[in-house]
Each structure stands twice: as structure tokens, then as C-alpha cells.
């Protein structure tokens, strides 16, 4: 099995490397990816893992001949989650010839979006920024590849429906969320689906940063929802787990947003967290071929781009998924239009990505000119005490409801 996975990983690398010679890669002009991340403040729970994944993947790609012979250059900068510094980073890297950007912070992405749209530069915004940006007809230069929070919430409801025997009419679903835009975002979709399916939706807002949830969980104990969907972050999950125990709410009915990682699990306690659910668009764990390859090729020899502990974290897989997609787009662009790589060819390449799952790393993506999200497929995984076990296959549900909201929201956006 291991050998098979290794072969698969090598196959992926070969696909990335294509036919180019290893030696010539370094001599060619590089393909630059700008990572203006918050590495020092609010998002530092995820950004180091993603940056490390990008650097590792670039190293691996370069060691295997680059993308169509061109080396990949990853430029990492810190913006401290300050919109002004994010703009500064964008403007600076733009002048250095970078046109693929990822900011990994909602406030900064929002601040840069009008500029990227005006300049015609690729803005990757997986898991951050506005959800309606998946509408490629309006947000031509924005690629939020992966599920939006709206789609994720819809998929969560579909999972619950399946678990409850395909009928939600008498069901009760709780939604516990951080009471600011990130947590509030799915409410609109949940309400729309609740009307459609006839289940009762109970909302439990929690003030930032999620350390005080006692009131919410007392209400949950009283309301007895069948499942609780959770839009909390980091320490919020740990507090929720304590409250669940205190209020005797079964942990296997707690379905988290994708932002729950191994650090949160170890803070809850690996055994205590057994049964907890998480919606995700990337496969967790280290059995994923590309992650395994990184561990064997680099980390076993102490040559990784950072500490190994960060590799054993699902956010590393998330970073791998994001940059596998970015690299794949660059490969398709050069293959179709040759060098030089331009924002236009990169955009066209992104839009031609079809059924790409980075060799089992994530939900298969099919990006089109109208859907920049790639289909929005997720699955639910359960923590078994040691690792994440997938409970469903990749799927995207209630697409009609979600797209109605997306279209309604994106219609209000105009580039001036």
C-alpha cells in the first residue's frame, strides 16, 4: 500500500514536472507566488502551516524539474493582519512581477480585492474573503478555490439529513457561531435550507473570541438539537468540548467548520475528542501521498522548510491543496500558451482545471469561468481517537439554494 502511494506521489510530481529537465529548471525564469500572510497576529494559528506547505511543494517541484521547466518561487511576507500593510505588500510584490497572490486574512483580502480586480491580477482566496467571489462572472480575477462557508454549511445540513434517515422535517439543528461576520455568514443559507427542508434552526451566538459559551450551551441543553453545527475557531472548540461534557451533549453530534486541527484536538484531549465531526475539503492525516512524500523526502533528512510538527497538522494539507491547485493552474497555462506566464493565461488555466484532486489530497475540483470555487465539494470526517476517518464521500449539495444567495450577493458588486 505504502509503495503504491509513493508511486502515486511520484506520478503527481512527474505531472507537475512534465518533461522538463531538472538541470534546466533553475536557469529558466521563475513562476512567482506572493504569500502576504498574517504570520504574527490573528491568523498565526494557520498561516505558518500553509506557508510551509507552499515552500515544501515548491522545493519538491523545483527538485523535480519545476513547472514545465520553470522553477517556482514562493515569496512570503508578513502583514500582521493589517489591511494597510496588506495593500503595501500587494503593491510591492506587484512591482516585482508577482501576479499570483494569496493573503489568508479576510480583512486584508477585502482591502486588496478592488485593486487586484482593477489591475487584473490573480487573487487566490480559499477560505477567506467574501463568499460570493466564487461567481467568476463578476469576480473575474478572484479564485476562492474550495468550498465557501455557505456551501460548507449546506453540505453539513445534507450530511445531517443523511444521518437522520433522509428526512429533516422533525429535526432540530443548532448553529453555534462566533458573533461576527465569519460566524454570521452561513446563517442566511441555513435559514433558506431550513425553510426548504422544514427543520427547526436554533442560533447560538457566542462573543469573540469564543471563551465564554456557557449561556449558549445551557440553551442547547434545553433545546436538545439533533446536531450542532459549529462555526468557532481554535480555542473555541476546546471551550465547546468542556461545555458539551458539562451539559451532557454528545460530542459526536458536534459538527465543526473546517477550522479544527490537531492542535485543537490535543487541547481537547485526543481520547476525549473521540467522535467529534468536522466538515472539510481536504483529506486529513499524513497518509495522503503528497504529505507522505514530503515527510520521507525532506523531513526524514531534516531538510523541510520548517518544523515537522507543522506537517502533522491538517492546515498543512490545506496549504498543500491550495498550492497544488495554483501550481496545476500554472502548469496548464504554460502547457496551453507557453511562456511567458501572464495573468490572463493563468486565469484561463485556473478556469480549465477539471476533476483535479491532487492525488487524493482534496475534493475533486472543476473550476469553470462561472464557478471559481471548483464545485464546493466537502465531506465529513470523524476523529476516532487517533486520526480523522471520512464518513462520507466528497459531495456538494443544495447547490441551487447556495447559488441563489451567491448570485444575489455578487449582483451588488461592481468594479469602479
Amino acid at each position, binding site marked *: 500500500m505504502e509503495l503504491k502511494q509513493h508511486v502515486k506521489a511520484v506520478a503527481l510530481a512527474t505531472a507537475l514536472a512534465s518533461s522538463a529537465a531538472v538541470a534546466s529548471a533553475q536557469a529558466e525564469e521563475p513562476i512567482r507566488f506572493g504569500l502576504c*500572510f498574517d*504570520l*504574527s497576529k490573528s491568523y*498565526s494559528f494557520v498561516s*505558518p502551516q500553509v*506557508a*510551509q506547505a507552499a*515552500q515544501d511543494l515548491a522545493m519538491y517541484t523545483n527538485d523535480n524539474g519545476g513547472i514545465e521547466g520553470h522553477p517556482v518561487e514562493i515569496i*512570503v*511576507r*508578513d502583514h*500582521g*493582519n*493589517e*489591511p*494597510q*500593510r496588506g*495593500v*503595501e*505588500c500587494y*503593491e*510591492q510584490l506587484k*512591482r516585482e512581477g508577482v501576479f499570483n497572490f494569496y493573503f489568508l486574512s*479576510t*480583512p486584508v483580502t*477585502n*482591502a486588496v*480585492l*478592488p*485593486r487586484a480586480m482593477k489591475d487584473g491580477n490573480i487573487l487566490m482566496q480559499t477560505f477567506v*474573503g*467574501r*463568499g*460570493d467571489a466564487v461567481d467568476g462572472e463578476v469576480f473575474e480575477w478572484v479564485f476562492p478555490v474550495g468550498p465557501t462557508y455557505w456551501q460548507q454549511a449546506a453540505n453539513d445540513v445534507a450530511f445531517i439529513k443523511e444521518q437522520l434517515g433522509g428526512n429533516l422535517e422533525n429535526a432540530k439543528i443548532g448553529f453555534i457561531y462566533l*458573533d*461576527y*461576520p465569519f460566524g*454570521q*455568514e452561513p*446563517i*442566511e443559507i441555513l435559514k433558506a435550507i431550513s425553510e426548504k427542508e422544514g427543520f427547526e434552526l436554533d442560533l447560538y451566538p457566542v462573543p469573540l473570541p469564543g471563551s465564554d459559551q456557557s449561556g449558549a450551551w445551557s440553551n442547547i441543553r434545553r433545546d436538545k438539537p439533533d446536531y450542532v453545527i459549529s462555526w468557532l475557531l481554535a480555542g473555541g472548540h476546546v471551550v465547546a468540548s468542556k461545555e458539551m461534557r458539562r451539559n451532557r451533549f454528545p460530542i459526536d453530534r458536534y459538527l465543526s467548520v473546517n477550522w479544527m486541527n490537531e492542535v485543537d484536538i490535543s487541547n481537547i484531549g485526543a481520547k476525549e475528542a473521540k467522535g467529534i465531526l468536522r466538515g472539510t475539503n481536504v483529506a486529513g492525516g499524513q497518509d495522503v501521498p503528497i504529505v507522505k512524500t514530503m515527510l520521507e523526502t525532506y523531513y526524514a533528512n531534516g531538510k523541510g522548510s*520548517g*518544523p515537522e510538527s507543522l506537517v502533522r497538522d491538517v492546515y498543512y494539507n490545506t496549504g498543500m491543496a491550495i498550492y497544488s491547485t495554483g501550481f496545476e493552474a500554472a502548469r496548464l497555462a504554460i502547457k496551453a500558451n507557453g511562456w511567458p506566464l501572464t495573468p490572463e493565461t493563468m486565469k484561463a488555466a485556473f478556469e480549465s482545471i477539471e476533476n483535479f484532486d491532487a492525488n487524493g489530497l482534496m475534493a475533486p475540483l472543476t473550476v469553470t469561468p462561472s464557478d471559481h470555487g471548483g464545485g464546493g465539494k466537502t465531506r465529513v470526517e470523524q476523529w476516532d481517537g487517533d486520526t480523522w476517518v471520512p464518513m462520507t464521500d466528497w459531495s456538494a449539495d443544495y447547490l441551487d439554494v447556495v447559488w441563489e444567495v451567491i448570485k444575489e*450577493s455578487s449582483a*451588488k*458588486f*461592481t468594479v*469602479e
Partner: protein
Amino acid sequence: MFKVPADRNLAVFFLLFGLGAPFIIPSLYLNSYMLPWLIWTAAALGLNLVTGWAGQLHLGYAAVMAVGAYSAIHAARFGVPWEFALIIGGLASSVIGSLFAFAALRVKGLYLALTTLAMQFVMDWVLNHSPAISGGSHASLQSPTLALLGQEITSDTGFYYVAFGWCVLVTIFMLNLKRTGLGRALVAVREKDFAAAILGVNSFYYKILAFATSSFIAGVSGALLVATFFFLAAPEQFSVNVSIQVLAMVIVGGLSSIIGSYFGVALILLVPGLVNGFVVVTSQSLGMQINVETLAHIPNAVYGALIVIILLIEPLGLGKLYGNIRDYLMVWPFDQLRK
């Protein structure tokens, strides 16, 4: 207006430099450093009016800027010409900002700081819970293209001149404030409000005036920040840490120092980015393999140390530091005569 000719010469030099900046400075520095620097300086001067001159500690300044920004953008989206939209933004801020003055009548010092901080949290809550104000479930409100005097402004140079014009306007106002009865009355209120009352200075009136004026400046600055720099408003641009940052700009620059506000903003706003770039370039040129996370934290440490060192050298802030250097140079090489 200027007691020392050197100050006047410096002001004239900066004015000419500011006017010629788009032709001298590369566009990156013009639109990512100069422009936000000028707008934040205007905003910091507004806060300096209420904190430096009138002596009222204000920790909710970003909230007041938010009121101006959102009001102006909503007005502009509604079709109101930008000139009026900016004034509407300023007035809306004045009204909300003056509410702080009523708190200031009852409480002082740290208690007022806490009260204003509470107002900041109220504003955060309102923005996060009113999609009608903040622009839908993503809480981002797009700003229509800025147009002044019938001229649409879309170029970097255009945005820069708008920011420059506003900053000059606020600076002239503040320079004049120093030498008018209003300025002196504010200083009297700051030093001892009941003593000022004995002198016939109505501290109630002047406190409200100080809050209203500074809020007007905040409102217009907030609106211009969005219209010329961010192009859309989001709650995070006016959150509590921004309030603390503006206060830091004023304190590091020097309370009731105009030139100090310029320096303070440069230090708080621009130095983190510059130090960051410097550290990255240095580590690259030395060929050091530093982990990205460590690399991100080094500039923060350097920046923090810089603030501490500056305040240790001159507790009255960068404005006073400038004054010391100027005084030294003015009598140079005869400075030893004073000793």
C-alpha cells in the same frame, strides 16, 4: 504662526516637497506609504486636538472614523456628490463623537478612556450586526469612484493630491488653533477645568466643541481613507486596535505637537512595514535560512524596542525630539556657549 524661522522654512520645504512628490517619488512609495501616511496624519491631528489640546483621553477614535466613512460612502452610493458626502460623513461623526463629550463631562482621565473604549465596542457591535450599514453578510461596503468638483479621480497621483490637500487643510487649521482663543481655552480646560471655569471659560462648551471638531476631522479622514486607499469599508479597518494605534501615534509623536503627529504616524504606521522589508532583505543578502514565522516576529520586536527607546530618550515624543535637534542645530557650532 511660526515663532522660529527654521520651522517656517521646514514647513515650506515640506509643502513644496509634498506638491512635487508625485514627480519625485516612485509610485509604490507614493500610494502605499505617503498616501496613508497623510490621511492618518490628518486623523491623528484630529485626535491630538481632543487629547493633546483639550486633554481628554480618547480610546474610541476609530469608531468615530468609521461613522464618517460609512455615512459618506452610503451618501455617495445614494448619489450625493462626494463633496457633500464627505461633509455628511464629517457631520455624522461630529454628532456621534459629541456624545463622548457628555461622558467627558462626568468622568476624566482613565475613566473617560474606558468610557470611550466602551463606545468603540458598541460601534464594533453595530457594524457587525447591521448588514444594512456594513454592506451585506460579508460586511464590506464598496466605495463609489471618488469625484471632486466634477472630476473623477482614479489615478494614484489624483488620490495622493486629495490626501495631501486634506492633510494640509487640517494642519493649517491646527496651526491656527494654537494661537486663537479657542486653542487657549482648550489648553485651559486641559490644565484644570474648574480653574478654567473661574476664568470664565465654559468647559462644557469647549469640551463639546473639541469633541465635535476632532470627530469631524476623524469622519472626513475615515471617508477619504476608504475613498482613496481601501476602496471599500470593512469593520476591521476601524476596530479597537486601530483606535489604540491612533492614540499611540499621538503619544509617540508628542501630545499637542503638530510636527510630532507627522512623525508619530510615520513611526506607528510605516515603520513596521519598512522594518519587515529591511529584515527580509538583510536575511536574504546574508543567505540566512530563517523560518517565516521567526522572520515575521523579528520586525515586531525591533519595532517595539524602537518605541521604547524613543520614549526613553524623549518622553515628550518625537515632536520634542525634533525640537531638541532643531535647537541644537540653530546655535551650532556655538552650542557650547549655552553650557
